[in-house]
């Protein structure tokens, strides 16, 4: 078993509200990612679950039992810190053995467990070294081994891949997913990297300024963002947002353009709206019945594709195109819109108006 439930947790540091009523339900065995920009309260959420922060309000339940007042040691959790927090005076072996030593395991048990972990993570030859003699990637593996050496209720990971270079990060991503699958344990994983979140998670919770914006599968969060902020935060290149309002069967943009009104929207006429368009739902190469006039602003070749920046009025639309696309800045062009995949948000509240009727 390994369910973690956080209910209405609040935590302030001085005048800063780090967590403002955070509620999360982490099912047993899931890879649960907490995603948000820096300062969103992700780490504080993790530390609240771990028992490292005293809560101002709210509760933490582990396996259905209230653990709000429990000491970290009593919660039976393991954590990988962003800084790894390897004990500098201890060898790698002793670092990995530490959770077992704290629980008074016999030295033969410890030796077996450390050996198994070090071979799983390919760090056998590092066991007698000290943390200062390790590279970043090696430290990360040792920190991971120290967490995985036990079978706790759940594993907490605080941006464990952030300090690694890109290649290693991609490798470790695959490896973590593999480890999660083979252990079948609950992982709670904090990151500000949406690629990590979308590629690894069973469930994503998007956090902003200490408030949960949306919880769902990666597809749900990407395809049906609950509000304008989530839509803007998740996705690369970021979603383009255009101010507009509905008028009968048309959407009329603040810049003067018109598009057919999507069937699924319930917004009443005249209400200030934001039309959200993802780069892959726009095209400068195909023709369709819904299109926006604009002029070419710039090209960003990314190797496998090119992002075309198109200026519509004062807004810049990001459009995904084939790497072979060409053009000169200032050139007039039409951007075809896949309206079935567009998003509409209330310009005042930022909430999505797309969900109903889809």
């Amino acid at each position, binding site marked *: 078993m390994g369910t973690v439930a956080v209910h209405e947790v609040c935590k302030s540091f001085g005048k800063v509200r780090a967590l403002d009523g955070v509620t999360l339900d982490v099912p047993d065995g899931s890879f649960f990612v907490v995603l948000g920009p820096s300062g969103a309260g992700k780490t504080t959420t993790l530390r609240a679950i*771990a028992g490292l922060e005293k809560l101002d309000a709210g509760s933490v339940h582990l396996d259905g039992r209230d653990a709000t007042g429990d000491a*970290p040691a009593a919660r039976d959790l393991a*954590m990988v*810190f962003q800084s790894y927090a*390897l*004990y500098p005076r201890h060898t790698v072996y002793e670092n990995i053995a*530490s959770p077992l*030593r704290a629980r008074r395991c016999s030295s033969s048990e410890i030796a077996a467990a450390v050996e198994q972990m070090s071979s799983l993570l390919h760090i056998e030859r590092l066991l007698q070294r000290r943390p200062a003699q390790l590279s970043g990637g090696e430290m990360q593996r040792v920190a991971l081994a120290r967490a995985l050496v036990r079978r706790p209720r759940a594993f907490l990971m605080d941006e464990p891949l952030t300090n690694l270079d890109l290649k290693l990060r991609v490798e470790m991503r695959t490896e973590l997913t593999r480890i999660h699958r083979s252990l079948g344990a609950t992982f709670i994983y904090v990151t500000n990297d949406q690629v990590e979140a979308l590629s690894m998670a069973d469930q994503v919770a998007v956090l902003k300024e200490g408030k949960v914006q949306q919880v769902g599968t990666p597809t749900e969060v990407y395809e049906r963002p609950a509000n304008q902020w989530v839509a803007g935060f998740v996705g690369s290149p970021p979603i383009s947002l255009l101010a507009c309002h509905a008028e009968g069967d048309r959407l009329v943009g603040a810049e003067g353009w018109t598009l057919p009104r999507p069937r699924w929207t319930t917004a009443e006429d005249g209400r200030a709206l934001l039309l959200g368009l993802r780069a892959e739902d726009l095209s400068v190469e195909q023709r369709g019945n819904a299109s926006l006039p604009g002029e070419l602003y710039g090209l960003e070749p990314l190797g496998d594709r090119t992002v075309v920046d198109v200026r519509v009025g004062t807004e810049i639309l990001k459009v995904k195109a084939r790497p072979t696309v060409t053009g000169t800045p200032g050139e007039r062009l039409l951007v075809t819109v896949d309206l079935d995949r567009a998003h509409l948000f209330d310009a005042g509240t930022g909430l999505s108006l797309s969900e109903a009727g889809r």
Partner: protein
Amino acid sequence: MAVSVDEAVSTGPARDHTPPARRLGGRGRSVLEVALLTVLAVVMLFPVLWMIETSIKENRDVYAIPAKFFDFTVTLDHYKDVFVAPDGTRSALSVSFLNSVVVAGVSTVLATVLGVPAAWAYSRFAVRAKKDQLFFILSTRFMPPVVVVIPIFLMYRQVGLIDNKLGLILIYAAFNVPFTIWMMKGFVDEVPAEYEDAAMLDGYTRLQAFWKFTLPLLVPGIAATAVFALIFSWNEFVFATFLTSSDSVRTAPPAVAGLIGGTTTDWGLVAAASVVFALPVLVFAYLVRKHLIAGVTLGAVRR
């Protein structure tokens, strides 16, 4: 005392950063430097040298006019007199040295045992009005001992701690705890709290985490802090003079000072006693010098 060492340590690297181009032509500058440093060294070291010389001169050489720098008869009689009384028993001075060792040692241990956990707590926990508390703790050091010695004398008289080694131990510890808290807080701040967080998740209690993972990293800082506390207790004169009177309780500073005055002063004995008094702290500081420098610079450098 801490400040002077801080400065002494920090000027070294600072001077290294001076671009060579801005120096006055290399050799002229270095000759001037050496000359000035030599003058300074002579001024600083002459009293020490004279003390050592006097301590090994025979009495008639001590009083000789003109003073004898080199051609005097070497004797260790004064050192014998420091430890052995004329009747062959232990001298009052040797008892006072032993008292100094006990008082300085115990008060330093006490201040460290109380101050280090307090510093840890101030560094790690959200304490109400933390800055005010820390300022209050420091402010107890603002007063020179002579200001508080009379009230303390009166209080000690009430509780019977006058002329009592415990009395001196307590007052020295009380003076050293604030210093220890302040200096150690800097060292504890340098040790990431995440080591303790990680240890607690490993399954240790908070105190175990502190004891097993943070404390070993603080040893250099503790050594440096303890040396400063020890030097304060060892050298302290005002409280020792006012609060003790009998030879069996008196520490070395008032005991050595007591040798001066009266009808005649045995300068050879005073010098020998001073050398014996100065030696332990010098040796101790020399032994822990690595920790001392590492400790002081660690505390000074912010990451």
